[in-house]
């Protein structure tokens, strides 16, 4: 990868991530060039087929072509549209061939590989006419549609079509003069070459071979691209071709560059920070935190030494005004060695000057004005103005991807910015480059089954790119897009790399980024959180996370070490879970606190719409919440009331028969709201609610409406209806991710010494669109700060609890504290249920679950495998990674303690095994996992009864073949074994006598035509008493010989 004299040795020292950092930089450069190419080709394309008629004509040409050229025409797309708009038409087209239409529809539903194999039965012209009728009139719309239909690679493929190459070439020749002398054979060859290069360069959807591409080859491909593109140059696209050419040459140049460690350049007298600053800003080479891409190391050294001579003088007046400080301040801060001439410095660059200036410990920042008074709560209007004026406001992914977040920016922030811009202060919003790249990427390759989410990314991207960036120029992209860090991580990196700058990261609601930015490392950065005001959707609240406060007035207030020292931590990955300092961890040995059952008797009943006050004395309006059937939404403990789209209130039941409003609950909630754990997606009580100064309930975050209880989704995934309607497209990987997310929630709770207590499928919600999202609900029942979890269910209670507490006449859940170990056991049961499609670990054939638990009978070990319930359980078990299965055995057989954190680890491994090691993704695996496909242990066979394909061990297969026995899958085998137990009278086909037999014999006779033979007529083998040769006779004949006291003789001996 790297060339140069000493590079081989250096290369060895690069660890994996560093190599990735390097290749990332390179790939980025490649990508940017390739984008140019793409744009250029699109341009060529649309110049070719610029009018509606031509499009139709072209499509007509294409439709004649057979083969799988989806890059040219996505015919499924057309048909899909047609079906949606006009199913009748389709019937007409196919001459009312109903079968064909059904087949077609079916074909479209599952994206088959051969997309076009079916459609050729339809008359092409008719189809085209149909297409026209669907996209009637509007050229714009048609263009847009066409854009979706074509891939840029299409052009390179045009020439490949033997039948049409001539027509296409004619068209192209008419447009592009340079191509005139190309004959048809050359044209075809060129197209084939372009096509294969394109696949190699950009990868194909079936293969990604970018990494194996050598630099030489890359260069050759780029040259060829440039050469071919050159042929399509005309007046209109001249500029874009030039740009493309320039970028291509730049890329080629950069392929030869070396990856030089910044630290190696420190001999020039600059420190690392400064060097990276200089190299990045002055020479424009791609720089990646630790490396700089430059021709050679010598060149880098030379450039650094030339540095001082090359830069033009910086006008200190301008610099000072940029920094908003008096000029004298700047001059005072300069080292004496630096010469001044006409208030200009010549020896250093502006960025270096900035660094020097910063390091000189001067106050240099804008006056914070109103902002300095901010302590907590909502930012006032003036404070937001000041924030925009003094800070670089970065929009993070949470606000960009949220519709309300975008509304907030549109309706509130942009008017402010316009106002400020009028006053002559150019203010921008900023977006970190990785965030932009991710949104773009996710938009491009989102699973089609998750249509809604893709739409979200689409609208987000269009809003950012078309509206903010292109049209109004509100946004500036900053940073380098990264492939190895996620959006939050690279945002945090950016903040730490720019610790001298005043940055404000704006999130929508909670986001992990707030925990990832460290006040000590980046003193000037704050994270602000915008949200809808509680109770009023039209208004917005913006708050600064308290851990980033106070705002720092000037550099004087910051310890210099932070700014100067080289940050060694910078390259480490940030821990995703950062326990928030504001959360006070509960002591382990906190004593049991009884929850009093004394009722709070309300003076007045709560109406359906009412105003309640919170503990902060703010007032909110709540309204009873009804579902689509007009039923009140309520749980066992309370009714739900709507507040706004982010929050709901839970008010405890006060019906006489079901009185839950007790002082015990009040005390617990009031304790809980003091201390909100810093976790995502947890409906922890946020505020207590009071009606006429009496406690009535609490406020919690709302779970998005499309989320569903585990009991109605994940645990029911074995039902076809759920697979088709609720969890569309989910497979085993999704189950594993889901279980992992769940275990990680429990892990985080345990880390904060909170126990969930009542683990059951109704207290978790899953997001059908994203399997890694799990919400925790019903948090008020959690065991917290000595308060017990007062509820539970039979199925999800640790047997020890029932043994221990049940002795005294039943289990009262509010009378004891559960332990972490007990909870981890229940967690294991729950994970088992998720992975085994709602099978309980203690379901044993022919045994009650309660008995199985008592006897610790966990049947999933080899010796007891016959007791595993039928169905897919055994195959699921055999397809688990060993870590998971041995953990299950540890828990359920040996009753060992496996912690939530360990489960997270194991499930991560499982996820890895599925993604990388080819473990089965099927919900119900049918075959044993083959660890070594080159030397397989298993043979694939079809079950003789049900026909399902399964696999069995080679030697077993041979044994069955040897004895001519049936090959049966596990289910059919156990079915047949069951039949054996049912007696039946059958007639022997040999002696015609009735005899006692079993249903298996009957079944095999009917199914396979096996002979029904009574035990007397059964052929058995005994040895000849003279020569010892095997002698086959019916059992009854042997018996007869014995009765007559005759010896057994073979044919030969008898003759003798």
């Amino acid at each position, binding site marked *: 990868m790297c060339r140069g004299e000493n590079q081989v040795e250096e290369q060895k020292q690069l660890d994996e991530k560093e190599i990735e950092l390097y290749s990332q930089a390179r790939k980025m450069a490649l990508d940017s060039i390739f984008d140019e190419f793409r744009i250029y080709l699109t341009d060529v394309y649309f110049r070719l087929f610029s009018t509606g008629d031509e499009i139709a004509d072209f499509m007509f040409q294409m439709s004649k072509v057979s083969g799988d050229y989806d890059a040219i025409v996505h015919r499924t797309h057309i048909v899909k549209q047609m079906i949606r708009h006009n199913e009748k038409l389709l019937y007409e087209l196919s001459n009312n061939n109903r079968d064909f239409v059904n087949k077609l529809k079916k074909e479209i539903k599952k994206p088959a590989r051969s997309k076009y194999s079916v459609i050729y039965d339809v008359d092409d012209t008719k189809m085209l006419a149909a297409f026209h009728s669907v996209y009637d009139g509007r050229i714009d719309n048609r263009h847009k549609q066409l854009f979706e239909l074509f891939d840029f690679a299409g052009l390179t493929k045009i020439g490949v079509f033997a039948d049409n190459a001539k027509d296409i070439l004619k068209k192209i020749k008419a447009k592009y003069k340079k191509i005139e002398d190309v004959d048809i054979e050359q044209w075809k060859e060129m197209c084939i070459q372009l096509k294969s290069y394109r696949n190699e360069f950009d990868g194909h959807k079936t293969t990604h071979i970018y990494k194996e591409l050598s630099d030489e080859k890359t260069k050759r491909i780029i040259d060829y691209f440039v050469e071919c593109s050159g042929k399509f140059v005309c007046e209109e696209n001249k500029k874009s071709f030039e740009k493309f050419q320039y970028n291509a040459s730049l890329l080629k140049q950069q392929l030869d560059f070396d990856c030089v460690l910044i630290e190696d350049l420190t001999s020039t007298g600059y420190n690392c920070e400064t060097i990276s600053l200089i190299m990045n800003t002055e020479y424009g080479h791609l720089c990646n935190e630790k490396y700089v891409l430059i021709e050679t190391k010598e060149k880098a050294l030379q450039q650094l030494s030339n540095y001082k001579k090359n830069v033009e003088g910086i006008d200190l007046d301008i610099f000072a005004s940029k920094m908003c400080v008096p000029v004298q301040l700047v001059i005072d801060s300069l080292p004496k060695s630096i010469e001044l001439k006409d208030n200009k410095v010549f020896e250093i660059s502006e960025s270096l000057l900035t660094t020097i200036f910063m390091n000189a410990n001067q106050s240099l920042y804008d006056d914070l004005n109103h902002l300095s008074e901010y302590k907590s709560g909502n930012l006032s209007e003036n404070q937001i103005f000041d924030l925009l004026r003094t800070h670089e406001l970065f929009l993070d992914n949470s606000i960009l991807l949220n519709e309300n977040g975008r509304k907030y920016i549109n309706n509130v922030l942009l008017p402010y910015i316009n106002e400020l811009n009028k006053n002559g202060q150019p203010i921008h919003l900023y977006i970190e480059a990785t965030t932009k790249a991710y949104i773009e990427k996710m938009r491009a390759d989102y699973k089609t089954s998750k249509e809604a989410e893709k739409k979200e990314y689409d609208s987000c991207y269009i809003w950012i790119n078309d509206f903010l960036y292109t049209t109004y120029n509100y946004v500036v992209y900053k940073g380098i897009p990264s492939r190895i860090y996620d959006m939050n991580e690279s945002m945090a990196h950016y903040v730490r790399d720019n610790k001298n700058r005043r940055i404000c990261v704006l999130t929508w609601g909670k986001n992990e980024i707030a925990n990832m930015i460290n006040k000590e490392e980046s003193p000037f950065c704050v994270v602000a959180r915008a949200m809808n005001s509680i109770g009023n959707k039209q208004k917005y609240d913006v708050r600064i996370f308290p851990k980033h406060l106070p705002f720092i007035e000037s550099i004087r207030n910051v310890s210099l070490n932070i700014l100067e020292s080289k940050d060694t931590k910078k390259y480490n990955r940030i821990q995703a879970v950062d326990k928030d300092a504001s959360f006070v961890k509960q002591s382990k040995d906190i004593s049991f606190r009884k929850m009093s059952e004394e009722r709070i008797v309300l003076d007045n009943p709560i109406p359906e719409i009412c105003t309640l006050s919170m503990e902060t004395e703010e007032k909110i309006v709540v309204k009873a919440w009804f579902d689509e059937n007009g039923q009140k939404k309520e749980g066992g403990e309370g009714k739900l009331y709507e507040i706004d789209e982010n929050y709901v209130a839970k008010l405890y039941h006060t019906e006489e028969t079901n009185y839950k409003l007790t002082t015990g609950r009040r005390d617990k909630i009031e304790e809980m709201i003091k201390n909100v754990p810093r976790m995502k997606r947890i409906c922890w009580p946020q505020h207590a609610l009071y009606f006429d100064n009496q406690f009535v309930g609490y406020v919690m975050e709302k779970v998005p409406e499309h989320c569903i209880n585990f009991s109605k989704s994940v645990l029911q995934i074995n039902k076809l209806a759920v697979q088709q309607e609720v969890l569309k497209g989910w497979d085993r990987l999704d189950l594993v991710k889901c279980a992992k997310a769940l275990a990680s929630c429990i892990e985080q709770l345990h880390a904060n010494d909170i126990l969930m207590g009542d683990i059951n499928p109704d207290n978790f919600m899953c997001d059908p669109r994203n399997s890694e999202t799990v919400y925790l609900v019903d948090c008020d*029942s959690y065991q917290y700060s000595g308060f017990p979890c007062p*509820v539970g*269910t039979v199925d999800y209670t640790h047997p020890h609890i029932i043994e221990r507490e049940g002795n005294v006449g039943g289990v009262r859940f509010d009378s004891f504290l559960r332990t972490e170990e007990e909870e981890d056991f229940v967690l294991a049961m729950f994970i088992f249920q998720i992975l085994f499609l709602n099978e309980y670990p203690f379901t044993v054939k022919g045994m009650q679950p309660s008995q199985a638990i008592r006897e610790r009978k966990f049947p999933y070990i080899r010796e007891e495998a016959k007791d595993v319930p039928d169905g897919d359980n055994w195959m699921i078990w055999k397809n688990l990674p060993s870590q998971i299965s041995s953990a299950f055995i540890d828990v359920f057989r040996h009753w060992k303690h496996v912690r939530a954190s360990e489960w997270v680890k194991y499930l991560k491994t499982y996820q890895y095994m599925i993604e990388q090691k080819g473990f089965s993704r099927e919900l119900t695996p049918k075959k044993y996992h083959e660890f070594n496909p080159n030397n397989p242990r298993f043979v694939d066979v079809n079950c003789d009864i049900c026909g399902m394909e399964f696999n069995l061990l080679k030697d077993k297969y041979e044994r069955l073949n040897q004895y001519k026995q049936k090959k049966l899958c596990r289910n059919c085998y156990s079915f047949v074994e069951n039949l054996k137990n049912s007696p039946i009278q059958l007639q022997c086909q040999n002696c015609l006598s009735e005899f006692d037999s079993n249903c298996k014999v009957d079944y095999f006779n009917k199914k396979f035509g096996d002979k029904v033979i009574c035990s007397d007529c059964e052929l058995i083998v005994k040895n000849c008493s003279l020569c010892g040769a095997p002698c086959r006779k019916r059992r009854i004949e042997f018996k007869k010989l014995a009765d007559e006291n005759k010896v057994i003789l073979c044919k030969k001996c008898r003759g003798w």
Partner: protein
Amino acid sequence: MRLKHVNMANNKATRALICLCVDSSFSMAGPRMKKVDDEISKFLQSMYNDRMARDSVEIALISFGDDIEVKCNFDSVADAIKASKSINATGKKTEMGYGVNKMLQLLDAHIQELDSVGNKYYKPWLVIISDGEATDDEECRVVSNDVIRRQKNGNLKVKCLNMDDEADIKSLQRFVLPGDQVEQIGTMASIEFFSLLSRSISTVSESYLPQKEF
């Protein structure tokens, strides 16, 4: 098509078993039979529409008149909807006793099958719909004793439905526990079944667990 035993093992849903016994004597012909048809299909359809119920419910349907006809033997809801249309009320007799007896046999066999593959099931429902007196009084007496015994043991739930006020309910009355009423058709959809099913799917957290057999 997959074989029944394979299906049975692979469908892990806890089964809700519903046994429907319908009178097919001649007196049921005409509007009465239509009413029964409507009611049953409404009932089945509502189950079919319930995503959670669809895979859980298994329906057995027999008609009793001169002969006992097994229309479906713990099949899926979709199959039962088809089968329910084919009852012809042409019988001279009303062999309720034999009909219910046959149903109990089917039920026992099915439960055994479920047990053998390790599937779970809820308490089965037996629904008897008739408009008159049984013609096999002796058999009826024996079977009704069995049904009552099962109910007392908590192994079965029973609902008896008659057609209208004029109908004779003496035979039906035998099958219900003392204190329970024979109800008129039209209340079938109100069967507790749905609340039962949704309850069993969404676990309700209790604050107290009575002492169990652990």
